[in-house]
């Protein structure tokens, strides 16, 4: 629990009283039993480290922040999800879709790049060029935060 609580977004776990309001307001918990934020908080509190930092569990959260607004304790469940995803990633577990975005960020300075079609469309219809990006500056920052090393661990 303290490993999570000591990360920048993980403190909320200390306030959790297991009331379950997060789960009852969660749009993902409504459609699949695989995601249950209350239970995930419980697993963190109990210190079930390898179960929490698994490949799938931390990645069901939409970060819609409904739970943040509804938690009576200020337990910041949605924020704790960021904390455990950060920890999972350090162990090299990154979903493929996220890894693609991370690589694009490092290569292009943005996570979504315009398709050739969109570029042609923009030019044809007189829109400005796609907003300019300073890729070098992005890489400099990401090297300093060791982001490049981090994502190279991803499968």
């Amino acid at each position, binding site marked *: 629990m303290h490993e999570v609580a000591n990360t920048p977004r993980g403190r909320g776990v200390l306030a959790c009283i297991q009331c379950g309001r997060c789960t009852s307001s969660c749009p993902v918990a409504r459609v699949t039993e695989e995601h249950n934020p209350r239970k995930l908080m419980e697993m963190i509190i109990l210190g079930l480290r390898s179960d929490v930092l698994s490949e799938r569990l931390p990645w069901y959260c939409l*970060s819609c922040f409904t739970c943040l607004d509804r938690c009576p304790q200020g337990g910041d469940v949605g924020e704790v999800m960021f904390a455990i995803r950060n920890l999972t990633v350090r162990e090299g577990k990154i979903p493929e879709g996220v890894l693609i975005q991370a690589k694009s960020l490092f290569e292009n300075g943005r996570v979504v790049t315009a398709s050739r079609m969109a570029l042609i469309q923009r030019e044809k219809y007189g829109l400005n060029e796609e907003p300019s990006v300073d890729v070098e500056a*992005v890489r400099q*920052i990401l090297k300093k935060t060791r982001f490049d090393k981090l994502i190279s661990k991803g499968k």
Partner: protein
Amino acid sequence: MKYAFFAGCLIPAREPQYENSVQKIAPKLGIELVAMKGVNCCAPFSIQSLDHTSWLALAARNLCLAEKMRLNIVTLCNDCYESLLMANTILKENKETRDEVNNILVDVDLEFKGKIDVKIFSDVLYEDVGLEKVKNAIKRPFNGLRIAVQPGCHLSKPKRLHFGQRMGVLALDELVEATGATSIPYERKEACCGGPLRGINDEVALRVAKQKLDSMKAAGADSIVTVCPFCYLELDMGQIEIKRHVKEEYDLPVLSFAELLRIAMGMNLEDWEIKTHRIPITKILNIVEAK
């Protein structure tokens, strides 16, 4: 009214018709959008999920560029809004974090000072331009159109970031109603569209979208109006996918609120812009063309 314009990545890359509509209506309402040069990704949730410090440093770099322009940032996308607003708030409030981030930014010759604010375009229209001025600009009202407004989560959540503001969802409702249409209440209005799970778990994402669409249909909506470009894609494309997988049809055209305003203000969409909509928007266009 002058702003540093942060267009984001998804809108320019996938929804140029949204950006084009913003560029068309802004000058008519006295808004000057100055393009930000050499910005980077806002660092959305996927990047925040990977590494907290990298996110803060990237978001801070964008904020610093706007500080240099001495202008407040205006974003279109809910995710850019949330990322930049949250980073701006954290960095203004927390000296320790600010020092840590500035220590990274020193390498690119920047320093976060905390001199600007972050806004989203709908709030600019509501708060800075004012509802009256928007109403006066309407030439072709959408009387009788029943719209399910899809605000998108991060227009107003988490509430602590938006404390004391009468903006966000309420502002959007009033802007939509300024066009003569009705913003109808529906059960899942404040719920997520499922979009953030795209690329991670498509099947669950679609189930979340379906709940939303079911609830819109049950409330008798004619169409959907969004702010967020992710909701826009998810609900437009999602309807096609749901039709393919579970044979359920909604026929709810999706428009960004900028397109809605543009049409209501008397400016037509171009053919290529109409064609970008996967669910045809002809029934919406017919309402104004009949006038």
